[in-house]
């Protein structure tokens, strides 16, 4: 027999394989681990996005039609020295203005025309109510949404799947503020002779001390309807994403391996399918935080919730240009940072991304 036949035969000596080329574990050329390089790259991209946001925010408002001063002040009483400062500011070369702006993007030369207060002060005091409202809704929505997505995706085409997909698609197609108004009419104001139960707006009843336990309960009571609205809208997206991500995962061969090993259906789902399907879901939840912001703006408006969303509405109705600039910047920074966190988190939990 020929040489090749010998190799093909089973009697030949067992070739000793060399040490496995665990090449991915080798350090990168710059002495950085792949994980660190990934983090650096993502941070760089986030900084690039932030710069883009700053550029947009600065130049858009320099392109305002008509007299920019008039646009900023809207005929309101702005102190004369601020107006002079703004005029002097606008007379400088654009590039110079931009560099000054970069140094501190939030320090507007003039105050909010509507509130007659520095924009930075206004914006920072309104952050907390928004974080409380949106944060609670996101936590609730991701728990419920992911649970629905798992149940629907694992038994694709069954009754639960059909019903839940119908409901979530409908919720997904709903303007969130409209849902808020409906809940407000039904449970706040009361319709068709039924009394309302929940407060119709605000974060607390007038004259309540929000540092006491009773105050906290009062705030929680005020939160019920707006949180319910946002939760319903957000969970629709999370459920749809989790479902499709699980359906994708279920065609994978490694689940067959897990079944062949003797794992029960429940363990195949809990130990393999769901954790793996959660990875893309988590990133998508973070990536779509921009959509979360939209909900905050309109729902806070409907429920007069004194957060950044309501502030946006007030600034828009002015329009209070200095305030709008600051809010746009703040929301964008928030979303860009959330995206960065999502990327880093993903790398932390999915070993494939790191290399």
């Amino acid at each position, binding site marked *: 027999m020929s040489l090749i036949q010998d190799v093909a035969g089973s009697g030949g000596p067992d070739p000793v394989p060399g040490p496995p080329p665990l090449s991915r574990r080798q350090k990168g050329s710059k002495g950085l681990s792949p994980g660190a390089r990934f983090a650096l790259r993502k941070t760089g991209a986030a900084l690039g996005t932030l710069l883009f946001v700053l550029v947009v925010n600065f130049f858009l408002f320099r392109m305002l039609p008509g007299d920019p001063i008039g646009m900023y002040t809207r005929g309101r009483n702005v102190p004369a020295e601020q107006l002079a400062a703004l005029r002097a500011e606008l007379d400088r070369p654009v590039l110079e203005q931009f560099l000054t702006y970069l140094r501190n993007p939030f320090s507007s030369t003039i105050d909010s025309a509507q509130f007659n207060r520095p924009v930075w002060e206004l914006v920072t005091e309104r952050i907390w109510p928004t974080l409380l409202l949106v944060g609670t809704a996101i936590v609730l929505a991701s728990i419920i949404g992911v649970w629905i997505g798992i149940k629907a995706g694992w038994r694709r085409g069954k009754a639960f799947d059909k019903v839940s997909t119908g409901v979530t698609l409908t919720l997904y197609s709903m303007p969130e503020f409209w849902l808020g108004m409906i809940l407000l009419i039904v449970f706040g104001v009361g319709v068709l002779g039924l009394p309302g139960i929940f407060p119709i707006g605000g974060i607390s009843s007038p004259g309540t001390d929000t540092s006491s336990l009773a105050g906290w309960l009062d705030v929680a009571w005020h939160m019920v309807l707006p949180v319910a609205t946002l939760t319903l809208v957000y969970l629709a997206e999370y459920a749809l994403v989790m479902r499709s991500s699980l359906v994708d995962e279920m065609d994978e061969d*490694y689940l*067959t391996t897990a079944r*062949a090993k003797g*794992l029960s259906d429940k363990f195949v789902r809990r130990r393999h399918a769901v*954790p793996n399907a959660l990875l893309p879901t988590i990133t998508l939840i973070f990536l779509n935080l921009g959509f979360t912001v939209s909900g905050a703006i309109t729902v806070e408006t409907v429920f007069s919730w004194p957060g950044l969303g309501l502030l946006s509405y007030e600034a828009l109705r002015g329009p209070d240009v200095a305030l709008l600039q600051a809010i746009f910047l703040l929301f964008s920074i928030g979303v860009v940072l959330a995206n960065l966190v999502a990327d880093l988190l993903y790398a932390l939990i999915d*070993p494939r991304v790191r290399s």
Partner: protein
Amino acid sequence: MATLELEDVSVTYRSTEGDVPAVRGVSLSVDAGRSLGLAGESGSGKTTVTSTVLRLLPKSASVTGRVLLDGEDVLTMKWGRLRAVRWASASVVFQGAMHAMNPVQRVGHQIAEPIRLHERSVSESTARARVGDLLEQVGLPSRVAQSYPHQLSGGQKQRVMIAMALACGPHLIVADEPTTALDVMVQQQVLDVLTERVRDLGLAMVFISHDLSVLASTCDDLAVMYAGQVVEQGPSNQVFDDAHHPYSHALGGAYPRIGDRRFRYAPSGLPGDPPFPGEAPSGCAFHPRCPEARDVCATTEVELRPSGDRRWSSCLFAPEVDA
């Protein structure tokens, strides 16, 4: 008693367009310490047949016949019993190891998973030691346990799959195209590891491949499948060198042994494609592609008949012997 015995196994997939018979009346048996090669083109039903052994077919498949694993019919087992049998009595070396492993779990964890599942009393450290031991048995350093699948080469992944298949000391190993995606040199190394382990441990093995020459050099016996049926069966060297069915002959020719003169003068390939499952022609399913087909082949139903010492063929023109 044979380790694995299939008796008249048929598998039908139910779909909205009607029933599709993927496997039709297959009977096979493998004894301890023996290996059976299952050959055929894609779609011939070879993977479907072996999937009945651990009942890994989708819900849309209905299986008839008997699948005896260590004398016990797998098809009638309760779920709990079936889960206990899976991997502990028979395990699988899947094809395309990349997707057969969970991409986000360390391979050591994945090898240890069936050990922890089937042997509850095993401690964490014992399990870890056994994983290292299993990896070394397949020629990998034990530190590979800390790697993720994507960090390994194709050959390494396939070795890990073998180690995983051996984890619970099964009596039967089903190797489903374990070397198909590998390049030739690595293929041979993996084959050697697999056959050596199976021989040393005295296991029974069913080896699936479309490459007859690999099967001939790896297995004791060969069964050739076409359109969901076994068309020829016998000792592998005999089937490979002296096929009693034109299809086995063509399949052998499709993978020439380099240096063997026969292949130089008779370059063979098979015209046409195998029939879609459920659309098998009348008579001998192979007749439309058969170079030696005659009129009777289209009209006469064929079945596996003895065609020599320990040999069977379904070809109407195979050597006749008195059964």
